[in-house]
């Protein structure tokens, strides 16, 4: 019996170790390849250069156009996801009765379950032509359409996490507010939302990190042209889309061009990792407040 216990314990430990080992492996590979990339390209050129043409005859390794593309698409996505996500969270948490909430929430979460490749083609073949009917100069590949669609995709993430945070606000606070004569709207927006602020911020940051790391939608619908611009109407390329592009071509392994994807991947990893840390930290804080 004891032996079985022992086996189970080590089996479970092994499973846990596997995911940690994978993470360490990924970080190691990223670091090694990035270091050998930075040995050939000065880090200042990489981080602050404004031209990204690593595959061309005269290569330039300025990652800013890719960063700009990522930021632009993510910003558009957040413009959609944050207000809509927050408002639907307020509705679900404060207004909807329990039966409706139970029905609506899973439906909303289905949005998060749609494969991102479907969203990608949805953006490219449906949303873009629709937008072009309004703005004819919109390019076929642009930052706007994938940004909007990505916003819809991460909406459930925002609403679900924000709603959890709001429901975590103690009943007493709401009752106190009502006792002072506040309306439901006032209670929701001036008491519950501020009280759940750190949880909501954590949800936002997680959503930003999700938007930055999102790959398929932008690879399909945003174009593949690294361009330092804030114009949402023209093709851009994000960091993730670049990695896809190089991985699909046949750039020989071990070359400088090949290593660019690790350097870009490292930058992406550091970005989303940092955001996730902040998000976790905020959530911890919020838990303490009302524990």
């Amino acid at each position: 019996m004891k032996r079985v216990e022992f086996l189970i314990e080590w089996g479970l430990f092994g499973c846990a170790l596997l995911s940690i080992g994978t993470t360490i492996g990924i970080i190691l590979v990223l670091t090694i390849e990035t270091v050998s990339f930075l040995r050939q390209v000065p880090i200042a050129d990489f981080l602050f250069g404004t031209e990204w043409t690593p595959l061309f005859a005269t290569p330039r390794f300025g990652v800013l156009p890719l960063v700009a593309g990522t930021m632009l698409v993510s910003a558009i996505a957040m413009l959609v996801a944050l207000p809509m996500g927050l408002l639907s969270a307020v509705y679900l948490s404060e207004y909807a009765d329990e039966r409706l909430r139970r029905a609506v929430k899973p439906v909303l979460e289905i949005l998060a379950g749609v494969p991102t490749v479907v969203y990608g083609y949805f953006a490219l073949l449906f949303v873009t032509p629709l937008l072009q009917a309004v703005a004819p100069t919109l390019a076929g590949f642009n930052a706007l359409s994938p940004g909007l669609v990505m916003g819809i995709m991460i909406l459930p993430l925002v609403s679900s996490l924000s709603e959890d945070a709001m429901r975590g606000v103690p009943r007493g606070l709401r009752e106190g507010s009502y006792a002072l004569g506040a309306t439901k709207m006032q209670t929701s927006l001036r008491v519950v939302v501020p009280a759940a602020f750190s949880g909501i911020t954590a949800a936002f940051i997680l959503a930003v990190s999700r938007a930055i790391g999102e790959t398929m939608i932008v690879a399909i619908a945003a174009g593949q042209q690294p361009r330092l611009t804030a114009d949402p109407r023209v093709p851009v390329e994000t960091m993730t889309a670049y990695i896809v592009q190089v991985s699909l071509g046949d750039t020989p392994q071990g070359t400088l061009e090949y290593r660019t994807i690790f350097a870009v991947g490292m930058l992406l990893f550091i970005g989303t990792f940092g955001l996730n840390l902040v998000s976790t930290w905020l959530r911890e804080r919020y838990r303490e407040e009302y524990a």
Partner: protein
Amino acid sequence: MLNRYLRMCGLALTIVPFTACGGGGSAPSEADATPALIQLDGSSTVFPISEAVAEEFQKANPNVRVTVGISGTGGGFQKFCRAETDISDASRPIRPAEIEACQKAGIEYIELPVAYDGLAIVVNPKNTWADHITVAELKTLWTPEAQGKILRWNQVRASWPNRDIRLFGAGVDSGTYDYFTEATVGKEGASRGDFTSSEDDNVLVQGVSSDELALGFLPLAYVEQNRSKLKLVPVDDGKADNGEGPVTSTAETVRNGTYQPLSRPLFIYVARKAAERPEVQRFVESYFSSAALMREVGYVELTPQLYDLAAQHFAERRVGTAFGAGGSQVGMTLEKLLTREQ
């Protein structure tokens, strides 16, 4: 390089119907016989053709294994002249240095055209102004110096509108890109970097067909499959001897050599010794009956007469090259080439 093949197997699957994927790779060997091996290497541009032909061939001949490498035309000839391969894929005729190397090693070869590579210049169907473009204008537009400077249509030709121009082109890994830059800019691999460059031709079709201000280059056969979404721009090379004025790229103008400089024939070189083996014979002959396959992988097939002529050359084991002095000869049609010394 792999782009034409990859696009059928890659991401873009959701747009194009499934065609030539799956199956391929290693042939199932018969239980007793060790499979005969045919080795190919060479041009990445010809690779999709050889790969597709090999795949079909191995389906019909399960006890023959065909391997196709991609060392580039030059790298392929190096191996070929060291007798390491049976067939060499080439996107240009054999060069004098390579002829010499083969001669020294006592390798005789049969030169066979298998298809044409044609590049089309395309714009959006709503584009009313781009009725033709000259090679010089293409150079203005695509040269590395144009980066960040030539950004509007009227900078290419004054009569064109003062609006943004958005460029699309094959990925820099592809033979299509190499060839386009060589034919227009004049130096292989030299071009501006600020255009949408994709290994996936579907991305380019989608980009040009959904953007009024777009201009792009694509493999011709690929354009023909998407004819309704794109408008072909006739190209004028400024030379009268191979068709005067702007020439529209069609399978016909590619075949008769008037659509220059954006088309070229592709070859395989078969080692004379290997040609004695029955399985190599059958394999090489299957190129001549694979016209539909050529089209499928993005190329323009030869005329049936030319395939017959090529087959005849092969049957007669006619060795040597028609390009004595080496290098490609603009304006020389394959008809003239194949009927030389007859």
